[in-house]
């Protein structure tokens, strides 16, 4: 598209300089360093450094603890995404149906978006705290010995619940927007053709909602991969016994706490690759309407 522009030569550089500078200093330079460090083996005091190529990667990828992380992350992401999206969709469908109170419901549904993931985790920890949490009575009533601080599965359950809870608002807002974008005439036509509400939903609404769902799936996955560090750190610290140690958490733990710098760097690089793939995927298939450049 022909774009009219100002003729100034120096001004644009001035305008774009801050962002470029910060990007260079805090993005590219560290990213390059991570890449470099992932190919080295250093001792924690930096006395000896050896170039080892892809050895760190090999070590990481065959490390059972890492594979455990992958599994934990996969389970965590899938369940969180599925749970939060399903609940959000159900609620969005209801909201789309009713006339009155839509604004009020929306206001009431928005809150979790404003809550820090870490705090979300803490809230659920409070509620299910084995000592004084009110809701701890529920699993006990079901005969379960409730102790998330010692039981890995229960810890996972708690963390998934907290993460899903937090994402419901976000998904809700997008599903509502997506539903509103579906032309009423399509639904009316199918109703005239004899389709009942359930059939209408599965044959018309759901398919037309696919772009939104797809988009949300990617966003939720990214969220589960990265933004949930806070939840895990705050609630379980990756435990008990690494049962909630996600990939990001492992990078932090190995790097900061255990000072395994090179392994952590290698893991960072692997994560980078995953993110790039996901983002590229998102932009290529989901944001096809948006044209860059």
């Amino acid at each position, binding site marked *: 598209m022909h774009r009219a522009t100002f003729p100034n030569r120096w001004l644009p550089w001035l305008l774009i300089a801050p962002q470029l500078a910060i990007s260079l200093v805090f993005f590219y330079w560290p*990213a390059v360093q991570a890449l470099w460090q992932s190919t080295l083996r250093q001792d924690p005091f930096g006395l000896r450094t050896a170039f080892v190529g892809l050895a760190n990667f090999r070590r990481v990828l065959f490390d059972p603890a890492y594979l455990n992380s992958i599994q934990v992350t996969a389970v965590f992401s899938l369940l969180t995404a599925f749970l939060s999206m399903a609940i959000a969709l159900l609620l969005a469908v209801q909201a789309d149906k009713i006339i009155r109170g839509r604004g009020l419901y929306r206001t009431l549904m928005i809150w979790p978006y404003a809550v820090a993931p870490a705090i979300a985790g803490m809230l659920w920890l409070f509620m299910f705290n084995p000592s004084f949490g009110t809701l701890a009575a529920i699993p006990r009533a079901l005969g379960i010995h409730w102790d998330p601080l010692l039981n890995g599965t229960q810890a996972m359950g708690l963390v998934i619940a907290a993460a899903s809870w937090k994402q419901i608002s976000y998904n809700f807002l997008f599903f509502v927007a997506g539903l509103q974008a579906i032309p009423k005439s399509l639904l009316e036509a199918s109703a005239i053709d004899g389709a009942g509400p359930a059939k209408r939903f599965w044959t018309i609404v759901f398919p037309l909602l696919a772009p939104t769902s797809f988009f949300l799936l990617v966003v939720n996955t990214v969220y589960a991969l990265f933004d949930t560090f806070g939840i895990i750190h705050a609630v379980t610290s990756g435990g008990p016994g690494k049962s909630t140690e996600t990939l990001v958490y492992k990078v932090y733990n190995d*790097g900061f706490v255990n000072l395994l710098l090179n392994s952590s760097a290698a893991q960072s690089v692997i994560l980078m690759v995953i993110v790039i793939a996901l983002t590229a995927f998102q932009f290529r298939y989901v944001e096809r309407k948006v044209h860059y450049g």
Partner: protein
Amino acid sequence: MAEGMVGTSRRSIATGHLLLILGCVIVAFPIWYVTVASTHSLRTILNPPLPMLPGPEAYANYFDAFTGSITRIGGVSVERLLVNTTIVALGIAIGKIIISMASAYAIVFFRFPLRMACFWLIFITLMLPVEVRIMPTYKVMVDLGLIDTYAGLILPLIASATATLLFRQFFMTIPNELFEAARVDGAGPWRFFKDILLPLSATNIAALFVILFIYGWTQYLWPLLVTNSSSMNTIVIALRKMISFADADTPWNLVMVTSVLAILPPVLIVVLMQRWFVKGLVETEK
């Protein structure tokens, strides 16, 4: 599905309301829980189940919190925590908006060599959330002496690409003719930005402000790494410290108060600026 439409019976609408109310309860419950908890005494809290209604200790708890009790737990006063978190959140929100607008302005309304290269450079940073480059970025902070400073908390988070993309997209919808009319009227780059672009971007800026403020307020990993001294903690980090060092003496009622204080400001902002926020959120990501 349109209400009143063929197929939406009265019963169906009633079910709808029911489910929505249930949804709201699920969504609001944890927050309600912690708010109620902050108004009860420690003893009440330690004896489950927690009453569902606010209790009588509200004033006492909050008064306690603001007069130094929190300092005894976490080593830093709750006011200081709130100030820190506000500075970080505002710094990130305002900083990001200014920097991104400037970059988007340059990319859309000027021609300069390497223009598209710069755009891609910025765009690629989208793919590198801070969690992915923890160690090296931390090292940069140490090298630059930014540990335990506001700058250290704010700067690295200020330059991600989403806001730039949003503004770029929006600027591209400004008709060429508007731009040319302004030029014919005699407006240079600064005037055009101030008199025309800025007012037209107001809704976008409002929405972005909400999103970025929350983003800044809820930061966790980064403040965790970059602040060592308690006095520079954000309230979210301080909370976590309180929980992880919990022992038999932990005044849980005050921890609840801190939680409420950590939740309240962003929730208020979202609720008050709801309209812009929802619109902006849906537009931003799409």
